[in-house]
Each structure stands twice: as structure tokens, then as C-alpha cells.
């Protein structure tokens, strides 16, 4: 039974459960929905939940576990060798290829089972688009056949178990459903589990990121000394080896550029939000707000070009050799920071506007009634009341600033430098992650692997900053309440 059919059957069962659960509850109350503990639809949802959740859960677990179990089962059939992992994937490829051969009706299922490990097999599988690196050896074929046999059996059992689980759930729901059952509570705890699951995706993502970075990072530190990476003040990768890969200049550049970007985005964004939420007429607001949001939608490469072609030369004409003499070239921390700040304006303005819009009018009235001007009201009543949300918006903008790449590459230059002059070229961690990852260094060299170490470092640092931020916010809140 294919997975699609199984899924369809399960969905049908779920719908049956909904309808029957609802009907049974109503029947138990003599058709009077008012005699029920919960609304009828909760009984339906409860039954559907009981029928589907365990079944789907079993299905998901089974799908993940089966290949692992099978690998264990067939690995004994393979000759001892140091690249058993490779062989095992060969086994799977042969098994999949045989499945494809059968499903495309090149040979019958019985013929497939009887195939021999001779030279024709590779061609046969190639015919259905299953490439093999080499000819199939006898043990591999045997293992593959065993795999297929076990796999087919596993699939069958899985379908059976899932269906039994669904039916059992249905039965249990049927038995339990009566007018006094707390259907709503049960459904709500189900929904709550869903909510928790959704929240946990963030953690899963984090784990995923760590897993996808950590091994290569360790690999990097094996060939490049960690102390030089963390405390080195020079960043100069080179193909021939002998690169210096100190992360400090990159971190400094990240920090510097982000701070400048926030210095641009936060005041402009906040004042825009204030104007939109407190002064502008609904019509103006309805137009201006989405317009400002376009700023967040312009691809960052456009901002990069804007920095490179417009803002850089403009700054250069003021601060460059012909002006104040602080600036050598158009690409500088200032250029990138300014342009990034523009991009971030809507992050601050739109969110803050929504949040200030949520402050009850009664509070404003209270302030006006005391003879406060609008600006006094905003500064002393509305902003403090909206502060938690605004902090969130600013943190979001800060996060984006740290993670931005394109603007930095085009606007700040590629030179890693430790310096104080905001009119110097610098670069950031993210820009270097991209360039080292897509660069031409060979992929086992420290020059390429350093990208992962950079990613990991940035990740850990921002994590630390966030922990500190949370701690401070908590402290502040405790004092306030």
C-alpha cells in the first residue's frame, strides 16, 4: 500500500471520527447541544484527534526508524571493510533501483528477486535512472534483496499498525464520548501541544544549525589553531596556505556597521512610527506605512548597488580627499551603515506603529486632560506603555543588521580591518562567510572551512548577547512591576 493511499485512508478515518464523535455526543445529550459539557464540534475534533494523532505519530516515527533498523539488519551480510557506510548506501541505491525497475515494469517482481550479480545489472538499473558507481558485487546484491524483502514487510506492518492505531483511537473516542466528557479541555490540550510543538521548531532549527556547523568547525580547528582564530587581529586568507584567519577584525566590523545602521534606523524609524500612529490621518497612514515597508522589500543587492554607486561617492565628495580628508574610498563602514539603516527603517517603524496603536485611548485622554501636549503624552505615556514591544522591534532590527551581507560586500568593502575611523573600509563576519563559502579555495582547506567556524562563532556570540538581553529585560521588568 503506498503512502498516499494510506494517508488518504487516514484522512477519511479522521473525518469519520469527527462526524461520528459529534453525532454521538449529541445523541448522548438527547439532541440538545445545551446539555453537553462542550460545544458539539469539540467532540468531533476530539474524536478526530484520537484517531489521527497516534496513527500519524507512529507513521512518522516508523518512516524514520525503518531505514535505521534495516541498515542494522543487512550490515551483517556485508563483508568487513572500512567503508561500510559507502557500501550500505550502495545497497540502498541498488534496492531503490530494483524497486524502480519493478515499478516501471521492466521486469516482474519475481524476476527482480531472481536477478544475479553480473555485469547486466548496472545497465539495467541505469536504464531507469539509478546510477551506480561500479558493478554490483554479490554480497551487495544479496543485501539489497534482503533489504527489499524486509522493507516491503516493514511497510506492510507499518500500514497495519497505523490503521489499527487509528481504528483504536476511533473506538476509544466512541466509547468515551458522552455528554459529560470534557471534550473542549481535551482538544485544547491537544492544541496546546501543537503550540508547544510550533515553539519548539525554533529549538529544532537551532539544533539543526549547530549540527550543520559543528563538525566542519571542529575540522577547521583541527587544522587551524583556535587561539589564532579567536585572538588574531589579521584576516588575510590566501590560496597558497599560510593564511591568517583572525576573527577579531570581522567581529569589530560587524559591530561597528550594525551600530551605525541602528543609529540611523532607530531614530528615523521611531519618529516615523510616532508620526504615523499619533499625528497622521488614517488615509496618510494607510498610504505611507506600506510605502515605508517597501524599503524592507527592496532586494539587498539594490541597496548594495545604491551604496556603491550613490551613497559612497556622495560621502566621498564630502569626507574624501577633496573635502575633509577622512575618507579614502567610497566603500566604508559609514556607507554600509547608512544604507543598512535605511533598509531597517520599516522594521522599527511599522512594528512600533502597531504597538503604539495598541495603547488604549483612555491613557492618552488621561494625559491630555491634564493639559499635556501631544508630544508630552507620547513621550511620557504612550512610549513607556509601548516600550516592551518597541524593544522587540529594535532587537529585530539589530539582528537583521548583524545578519546582513550584500550591503556590506558592496558598501563596506572586502578589507578586514581593525580601526576606529568610520570612513575606513571594513567587513563583517557574514560577508566573509559568504565569500569563503562560495570562494575558490579547495573545500577541505582552512580557507573554506573557516566559513563554518565563523558561522558558529557568530551564532555563539549572538546567543550570548541574547541571553544577556533577556536577563536585563527581566531585571528591568522586575524593578518596574
Amino acid at each position: 500500500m503506498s503512502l498516499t493511499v494510506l494517508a488518504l485512508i487516514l484522512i477519511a478515518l479522521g473525518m469519520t471520527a469527527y462526524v461520528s464523535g459529534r453525532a454521538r455526543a449529541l445523541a448522548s445529550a438527547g439532541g440538545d447541544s445545551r446539555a453537553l459539557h462542550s460545544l458539539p464540534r469539540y467532540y468531533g475534533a476530539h474524536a478526530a484527534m484520537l484517531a489521527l494523532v497516534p496513527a500519524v505519530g507512529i507513521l512518522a516515527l516508523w518512516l524514520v526508524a525503518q531505514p535505521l533498523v534495516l541498515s542494522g539488519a543487512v550490515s551483517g551480510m556485508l563483508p568487513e571493510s572500512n567503508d561500510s557506510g559507502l557500501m550500505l548506501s550502495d545497497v540502498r541505491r541498488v534496492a531503490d533501483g530494483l524497486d524502480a525497475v519493478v515499478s516501471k515494469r521492466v521486469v516482474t517482481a519475481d524476476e527482480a528477486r531472481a536477478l544475479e550479480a553480473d555485469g547486466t545489472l548496472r545497465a539495467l538499473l541505469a536504464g531507469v535512472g539509478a546510477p551506480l558507481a561500479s558493478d554490483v558485487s554479490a554480497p551487495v546484491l544479496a543485501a539489497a534483496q534482503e533489504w527489499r524483502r524486509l522493507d516491503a514487510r516493514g511497510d506492510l506492518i507499518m500500514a497495519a499498525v497505523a490503521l489499527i492505531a487509528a481504528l483504536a483511537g476511533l473506538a476509544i473516542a466512541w466509547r468515551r464520548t458522552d455528554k459529560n466528557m470534557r471534550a473542549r479541555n481535551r482538544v485544547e490540550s491537544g492544541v496546546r501541544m501543537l503550540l508547544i510543538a510550533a515553539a519548539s521548531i525554533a529549538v529544532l532549527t537551532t539544533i539543526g544549525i549547530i549540527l550543520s556547523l559543528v563538525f566542519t568547525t571542529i575540522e577547521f580547528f583541527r587544522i587551524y589553531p583556535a587561539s589564532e582564530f579567536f585572538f588574531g587581529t589579521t584576516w588575510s586568507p590566501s590560496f597558497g596556505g599560510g593564511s591568517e584567519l583572525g576573527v577579531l577584525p570581522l567581529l569589530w566590523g560587524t559591530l561597528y556597521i550594525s551600530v551605525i545602521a541602528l543609529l540611523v534606523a532607530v531614530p528615523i524609524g521611531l519618529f516615523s512610527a510616532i508620526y504615523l500612529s499619533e499625528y497622521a490621518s488614517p488615509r496618510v497612514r494607510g498610504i505611507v506605512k506600506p510605502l515605508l515597508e517597501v524599503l524592507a522589500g527592496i532586494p539587498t543587492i539594490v541597496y548594495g548597488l545604491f551604496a556603491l554607486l550613490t551613497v559612497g561617492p556622495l560621502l566621498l565628495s564630502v569626507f574624501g580627499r577633496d573635502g575633509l580628508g577622512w575618507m579614502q574610498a567610497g566603500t566604508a563602514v559609514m556607507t554600509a551603515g547608512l544604507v543598512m539603516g535605511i533598509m531597517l527603517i520599516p522594521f522599527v517603524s511599522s512594528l512600533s506603529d502597531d504597538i503604539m496603536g495598541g495603547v488604549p485611548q483612555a491613557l492618552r485622554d488621561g494625559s491630555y486632560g491634564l493639559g499635556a501636549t501631544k508630544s508630552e503624552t507620547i513621550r511620557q505615556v504612550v512610549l513607556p506603555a509601548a516600550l516592551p514591544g518597541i524593544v522587540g522591534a529594535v532587537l529585530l532590527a539589530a539582528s537583521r543588521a548583524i545578519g546582513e551581507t550584500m550591503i556590506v560586500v558592496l558598501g563596506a568593502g572586502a578589507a578586514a580591518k581593525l580601526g576606529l575611523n568610520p570612513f575606513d573600509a571594513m567587513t563583517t563576519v557574514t560577508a566573509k562567510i559568504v565569500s569563503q563559502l562560495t570562494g575558490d579555495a579547495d573545500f577541505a582547506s582552512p580557507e573554506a572551512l573557516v566559513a563554518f567556524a565563523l558561522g558558529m562563532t557568530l551564532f555563539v556570540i549572538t546567543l550570548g548577547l541574547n541571553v544577556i538581553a533577556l536577563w536585563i529585560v527581566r531585571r528591568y521588568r522586575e524593578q518596574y512591576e
Partner: protein
Amino acid sequence: MDPMQDMRNDTHKMSAKGVDVWYGDTHAIKDVSVELEDRCVTAFIGPSGCGKSTFLRCLNRMNDTIEICRVEGDIHLDGQDIYDRRVDPVQLRARVGMVFQKPNPFPKSIYDNVAYGPRIHGMARTRADLDSLVEQSLRQAALWDEVKDRLAAPGTGLSGGQQQRLCIARAVATQPEVLLMDEPCSALDPIATAQVEELIANLTEDFCVAIVTHSMQQAARVSQKTAFFHLGNLVEYGSTDQIFTNPTDKRTESYITGRIG
């Protein structure tokens, strides 16, 4: 034109002439004319929804903040049209203070709630000045004893009646010339009510007070003048004695005699 000339020599602190108010299409106040005398308490009474709050909010232009609200007619403070284009509603509201029907303390500390007005009007020069102003206002609103130990606690954590008195203290602290009070005692127990009424009596020595109340007794006790509203109309306006003892309009009489509260 000398503004002083513009002021008439009567004792009317505020006067409203032919005031109409609409919320969108709802005609909430219909051609109301009233004079508030200085050093005198005027009570506004009438059934719920008749427009008392709305009229009160016209007197310090709080209705400006409601988008769908439209006000017509003349309202004068000290002889000056408060709806004149040159009038700054901010200055007006500093002189015509307001206590709202629903207590609305700021999400700040109790101290900051009261100090808010004096601060923006620059009424205290030193921290000590401000402290004593806050204390005095809280005392006047009969709240000092209950909160003196927790001035730094948030105002929103107070009980309903405490919040109401906090809002009174807040309004009193700015020392307005006219104080509009929208049911200032609705959530107060008798003792606190008595204290607030005493406050009102004291205020009248210098100022003009308008109060909305549902309690006939309270109106009779604190006010010298009473205005009775009904369905947006000012049905009757006169001295409190006269209104309560000898109403001219039948509606007034039936409202007052149906007294329960």
C-alpha cells in the same frame, strides 16, 4: 484688541451657548446653553447615556480626540471662545482639568502619576516642592494614608476606588481653574466620598467645579447649581435648591422623585 476688554464683568467662568454635538450621525447633545459660575459647584444629572460626559468633554475640548465627534456652538472661558482657532487646547486643558468616568491611571508609579501634571507645567522648582505637591494632592484626594508607603508601586495595581482617587489627585495637582469631574465618587465608599466632597467644597473657594453624578443626594449636598439632561437636551438648569424642591419641568420632577440612589 485687548483681551481684557473682551472679558465681561459677570461671574460666569464658563458659558456654553447653543452647543450641539454629533458622534457621526448620532446627535448626542442638542442645543445646550449653560453657564458655570466661578467659585461654585455645578452638578450635571440625568439618566445614563443622556450626554453628560459628552457635554463635560466639550468644556475642555477633550472631544477633539474622538475622530467622529463634531462640536458646534459657542463655549467661552472667561469670555474667550475656547473653540477659537487661536486657542491652544493644551493651555485650555491646563486651566480646565478633568477627572474621567473610568479611572485611567498611567502605567507608572503612583508618585509619577501625580507628579506628571506638575512636571509638564513646570509647577515645582525643586524635588522637595514636587514631593510636597504630590503629598498634598494625594491627601486632598483622601488617598495619602493608603499609598504613602508604596509611592513607587504602579498605579494600575490599585483597587478600583483607589485608582479613582489617584486620578482625582492627579487632576488636582495641576491646580486648574475649572475642574470637571465625571462621577468622581462612583467607586468610592461613603467615607472616601465624604472626603472628596470636602475637597470639592474646598476647591470652590477659589475655583469653579463641574461634577457629573448619579446620586441626587450628592448633587444636593455639594452643588449650588444643577443642570438636568435628558436624551441630549438640557431640560432644566437652575439653583440646586430650586431644582430639587421645585422643578419646573415634568421630566425633571419624575427623574428626581423616582430617586433611589
